[in-house]
């Protein structure tokens, strides 16, 4: 599937230095996160799942050592990004929801303020950034189009900019009015229910809110024809509310509310206008919107825009894109030859530092030229080559020095230990084992970085031969539209406040207006967690990492929060990494699952793969220790505890607790065996020579039951 | 009890010391009256700190658990709350000592309390005496000042060390 990968983790290795030695928390894991998908990482405490998520966010503890691997996000390698750059990524592109809501909120700031603060700040920076990105893209387009021989590229782009801004304004007006209409609709519904059930205590505030929202929903495309009627009703409601408050009899108002609600219901179900084409129409044709039904209007403006502007523009832009791509291809070919020429310097058995550094400099200069300014999907490999090669060279040559120091320390410590134990009593401190940098692996790393780059460029040149430039141009235009919208979309304090209140409602906090001004200590744990999720979502991130967010909450609230995350994922096209140890939650949320144990991924596949066809004994053990509604027999618990990661076991880490362990499990670590294109497991049981072991009965029965149910419903 | 301590803590110490001096010094000697002043005011700070500690631990679940097992209030206080709060209490107590030393030096420097009459040399008196010779014989100020600084610093370090020693990581108080 040619899905876009949002995040690629390759061969990640992280350890921690502690007083007792080096704890190898994450040993060589790789996974991909695709756009719009949820990846669930399942494992016990101590399996390394939290460490992985923190490495992605760049918030590892001070005593963490990044041993190796890459985390590719867009055009950055998150393992090597500096703290300054991380500020722009964290919260904005990648947001995180933590497990403990108590410590995730600022206790002396009101909750509403924490929500809106994030929104206002991010809005400012995102407007600035969008403007910068948009201008950069325009400039690149201009250069390349002119270079490709297109005449008057500038005027085309100026036209685009002009009506683009108009379009964004229209769009924001329309969405605002629609939001207000929807809000008024919801408020009306709840007021009607409250009146009918005689729960009238807090109604007056709700009614005022409704009136405000309904008024703001009057616009050209929402509530237009019946606007006068709505205004009359609102006036009526206002006057009747005052007396109803005193007499506590709201029945007169009820009728008005029902009528108003019907108007709003109608308004909300109207067709949406195509503001892009409408913007063009208004900027270059007429200056007022013609009076016709929305569907017809859309058609008219669409035709006009397409024929008069978009089609010729696309053709000309395509020429520019093609030119830029060819230029980059030429640069790539040159880079390949330089890389190939410099490779022997690294492949030597005893590379020389000065030579390597000079070679690296030449290679970096060549690679930098291979960045296509008109690319929408960033090529992370090319962007991160510079830091990768620098890091690899430093690691190798620094390793000589470090290993000598480590050797000295270790011999001294062992001598001291021996002297002390010769005196009779063995001292109760142990010698911390020496941690050497593997020089061979570092050397290989250097060579591999260059080789990978060569392969990558060759693949790109191949792919470019059959590239669909029309599609690429379309992508660029879409991107431009998006940037424009972001640069014009301004959030004022009151808008932010309304958004925050709506967000609080959607995460399930009742009476959000009252709670907006409260402090975090006035909320219960479940409520606090919902606020944390709301804050994480205010900035519209690309990736959301949830580190066991619902572990402390109970079932109904957990179900609500999971529903919320799923809805938001669909609406905003988020990619979610969900860390948990509850398999029921995983079944609900995940598209792909990675099961982790002792720092390694032991099984990786889609949800159907893992639940209907589990292959690793650890997955079997996890599945059989969870009772579902039909379990009657004794639960199979996993005996023992996870291993001590300071001295990780030589073979398969799970062998100790595995009833089905083979002898080879204690000797060698199993590689990832491929079961299908999407399903991988690291267990010797999948080796063609391994004995056939049946899954535990409890699992096979459950799978049968589930399949029967599926057969029935289908 | 809290209100009483709140009221008492607002009485400035110098006023108390001066009053005690004025009325008791001729009867029992200035040293003993100073002692009385310190004793009557010194317990207030510790009292509120102990109270905070007890409130902090009273709501913990293991106290409830002990109550279900049938523990009496006395047992709860002495076997559960006190050992947990001992660390903070002792550290607080030890850190009062530098405060007392400093107040005494202050009072003798200002001349409110004259311990010479009881036959005790005080750093404060030395300092005030040496003040007038500051330009000619600076060492008269230097050595008492050095002495009192070292005394303060060593008690502070001791208090800090105690605080670290009672730290959770050693006996696992809170994680």
């Amino acid at each position: 599937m040619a899905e876009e990968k949002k995040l690629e983790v390759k061969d990640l290795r992280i350890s921690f230095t502690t007083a007792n030695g080096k704890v190898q928390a994450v040993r060589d894991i790789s996974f991909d996160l695709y756009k719009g998908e949820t990846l669930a990482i399942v494992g016990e405490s101590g399996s390394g799942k939290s460490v992985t998520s923190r490495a992605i966010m760049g918030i590892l503890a001070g005593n963490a050592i990044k041993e190796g691997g890459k985390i590719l996000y867009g055009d950055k390698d998150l393992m090597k990004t500096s703290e300054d750059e991380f500020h722009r990524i964290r919260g904005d592109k990648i947001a995180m929801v933590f497990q403990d809501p108590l410590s995730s909120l600022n206790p002396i700031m009101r909750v509403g303020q924490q929500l809106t603060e994030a929104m206002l700040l991010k809005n400012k920076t995102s407007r600035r950034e969008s403007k910068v990105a948009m201008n950069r893209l325009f400039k690149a387009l201009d250069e390349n189009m002119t270079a490709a021989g297109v005449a008057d590229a500038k005027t085309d782009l100026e036209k685009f900019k002009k009506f683009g801004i108009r379009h964004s304004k229209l769009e924001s007006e329309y969405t605002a009015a629609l939001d207000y209409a929807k809000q008024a609709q919801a408020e009306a519904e709840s007021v009607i229910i409250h009146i009918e059930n005689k729960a009238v205590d807090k109604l007056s505030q709700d009614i005022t809110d409704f009136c405000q929202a309904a008024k703001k929903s009057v616009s050209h495309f929402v509530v237009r024809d019946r606007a006068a009627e709505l205004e009359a009703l609102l006036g009526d409601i206002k006057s009747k509310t005052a007396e109803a408050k005193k007499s506590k009899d709201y029945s007169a108002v009820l009728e008005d509310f029902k009528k108003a609600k019907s108007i709003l219901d109608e308004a909300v179900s109207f067709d949406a206008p195509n503001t892009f084409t409408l913007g063009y129409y208004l900027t270059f044709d007429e200056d007022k919107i013609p009076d016709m039904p929305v569907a017809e209007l859309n058609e008219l403006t669409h035709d006009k825009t397409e024929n008069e502007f978009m089609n010729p523009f696309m053709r000309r832009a395509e020429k520019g894109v093609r030119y830029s791509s060819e230029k980059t291809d030429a640069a790539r070919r040159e880079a390949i030859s330089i890389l190939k020429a410099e490779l022997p310097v690294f492949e030597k058995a005893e590379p020389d530092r000065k030579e390597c550094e000079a070679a690296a400099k030449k290679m970096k200069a060549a690679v930098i030229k291979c960045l296509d300014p008109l690319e929408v999907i960033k090529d992370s490999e090319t962007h991160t080559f510079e830091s990768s090669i620098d890091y690899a060279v430093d690691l190798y040559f620094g390793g000589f020095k470090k290993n000598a120091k480590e050797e000295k320390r270790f011999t001294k410590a062992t001598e001291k230990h021996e002297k002390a134990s010769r005196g009779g009593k063995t001292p109760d401190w142990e010698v911390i084992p020496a941690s050497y940098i593997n020089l061979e692996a570092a050397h290989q790393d250097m060579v591999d970085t260059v080789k990978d780059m060569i392969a990558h460029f060759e693949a790109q040149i191949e792919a470019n031969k059959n590239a669909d430039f029309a599609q690429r141009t379309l992508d660029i235009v879409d991107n431009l539209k998006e940037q424009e919208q972001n640069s014009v979309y301004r959030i004022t304090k009151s808008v932010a406040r309304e958004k925050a209140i709506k967000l609080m409602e959607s995460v399930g906090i009742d009476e959000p207006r009252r709670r907006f001004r409260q402090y975090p200590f006035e909320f219960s744990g479940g409520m606090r967690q919902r606020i944390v999720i709301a804050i994480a979502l205010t900035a519209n991130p690309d990736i959301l990492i949830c580190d066991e967010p619902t572990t402390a909450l109970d079932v109904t609230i957990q179900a609500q929060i999971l529903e919320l995350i799923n809805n938001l994922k669909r609406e905003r096209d988020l990619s979610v990494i969900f860390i948990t140890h509850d398999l029921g939650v995983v079944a609900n949320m995940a598209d792909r699952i990675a099961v982790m144990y002792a720092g390694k991924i032991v099984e990786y596949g889609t949800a159907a793969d893992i639940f209907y066809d589990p292959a690793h004994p650890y997955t079997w053990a996890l599945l059989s220790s969870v009772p579902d509604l039909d379990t009657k027999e004794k639960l199979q618990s996993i005996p023992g505890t996870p291993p001590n990661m300071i001295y990780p076991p030589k073979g398969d880490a799970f062998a100790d607790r595995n009833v089905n362990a083979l002898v080879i499990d204690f000797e060698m670590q199993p590689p990832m065996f491929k079961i299908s294109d999407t399903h991988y497991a690291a267990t010797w049981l999948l080796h063609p020579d391994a004995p056939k072991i049946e899954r535990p009965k409890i699992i096979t029965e459950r799978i049968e039951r589930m399949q029967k149910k599926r057969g029935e419903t289908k | 009890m809290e209100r009483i301590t709140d009221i008492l803590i607002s009485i400035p110490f110098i006023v108390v010391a001066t009053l005690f001096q004025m009325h008791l010094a001729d009867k029992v000697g200035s040293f003993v009256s100073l002692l009385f002043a310190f004793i009557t005011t010194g317990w207030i700070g510790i009292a509120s700190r102990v109270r905070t500690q007890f409130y902090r631990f009273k709501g913990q679940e293991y106290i409830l658990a002990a109550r279900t097992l049938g523990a009496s209030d006395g047992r709860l206080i002495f076997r559960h709350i006190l050992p947990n709060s001992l660390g903070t209490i002792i550290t607080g107590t030890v850190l009062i000592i530098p405060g007392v030393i400093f107040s005494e030096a202050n009072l003798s420097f200002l001349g409110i309390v004259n311990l010479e009459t009881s036959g005790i040399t005080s750093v404060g008196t030395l300092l005030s005496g040496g003040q007038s010779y500051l330009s000619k014989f600076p060492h008269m100020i230097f050595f008492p000042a050095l002495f009192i600084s070292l005394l303060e610093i060593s008690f502070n370090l001791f208090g800090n060390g105690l605080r670290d020693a009672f730290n959770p990581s050693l006996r696992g108080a809170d994680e």
Partner: protein
Amino acid sequence: MSEDNREVLLKVEHLSMYFGKGNFVKKAVNDVSFDIKKGEVFGLVGESGCGKTTTGRTIIRLYDATSGSVYFKGQRIVAGIGSYVSELKALRAERKTADPARQAKIDERVTELRAEIAKAKHDHKHAKKDLVTKIQMIYQDPISSLDPRMTVKEIIAEGLKIQGVRDKKLIEQKVFEMLETVGLVAEHATRYPHEFSGGQRQRIGIARAIIMNPEMIIADEPISALDVSIRAQVINLLNDLCKKMGLTILFIAHDLSVVKYFSDRIGVMYYGNMVELADSDELFRHPLHPYTRSLLSAIPLPDPETEKNRTRIRYNPLTDHEYTTEEPEFREVLPGHFVRCTEKEFEQYKKQVAES
């Protein structure tokens, strides 16, 4: 439907626990009644804030009940005077405007009530200590329920020491016995709680409870704070102990699949009221109250297909019930299956059950 002739061990009658006074009263538990028979596991479920923990703590006398009573083995151990006091107030107000015959009756009733109040106060204050210690509690948070400055041995032996046992050897022997029963080793006795994992700490808590030889254990969400893979261990342990020692367990939780696996009968609470009470299988077969149905639809199952197509039923107390004309009461729809409903809903539910 099994006819249980087992003796009723714990009887909770119209228990209410209110916090605060006047307009700001919070009705944590509001008129809850149920029985627990000897040897059964009774599950109490509901969302956080619904009053299940408060119920458990009131039964074990950590809070003073506002009104209602709790009988353990026939003896009253918790008595609240709230209902009597409010009746007294109402009667006194009525007395002012009543005729002499009625006044005489009111005076009679007043003296009756006064006697009840005195008896309740006496019962509550002088509940027999050795009877009360037969009910023990296991707490939710394994970290904060163990005193961090006591060794494991001291923690477990505390109960014995409070009872007055002084013989060190006997204490040691009992402690080692308990450690073995819960699956730990004797050498763990000299360590401190922070050196153990969550599951092991919970076992220490269980050991502390069972060393008192209780007849009933109230388990307040003992597994919510543990990893899923360790929950199975603790559940198996509780199951074994229940069978070996003939314990009765009041299991408070919010994870319904575990509750169904483990309990014989289940009571569902919502904002202080008990809304449904039935055998576990029966409850899952015929969930009647809308809240129960919404709760059941929220349980995550380890089956991706059903999960993706599952829609959660929402429960809105304002729309799902008509409580304006009639106050709901706890009625028996089927033998052993109680639901809190009005007369109209009662008929509805009966029809529902007959059809399914």
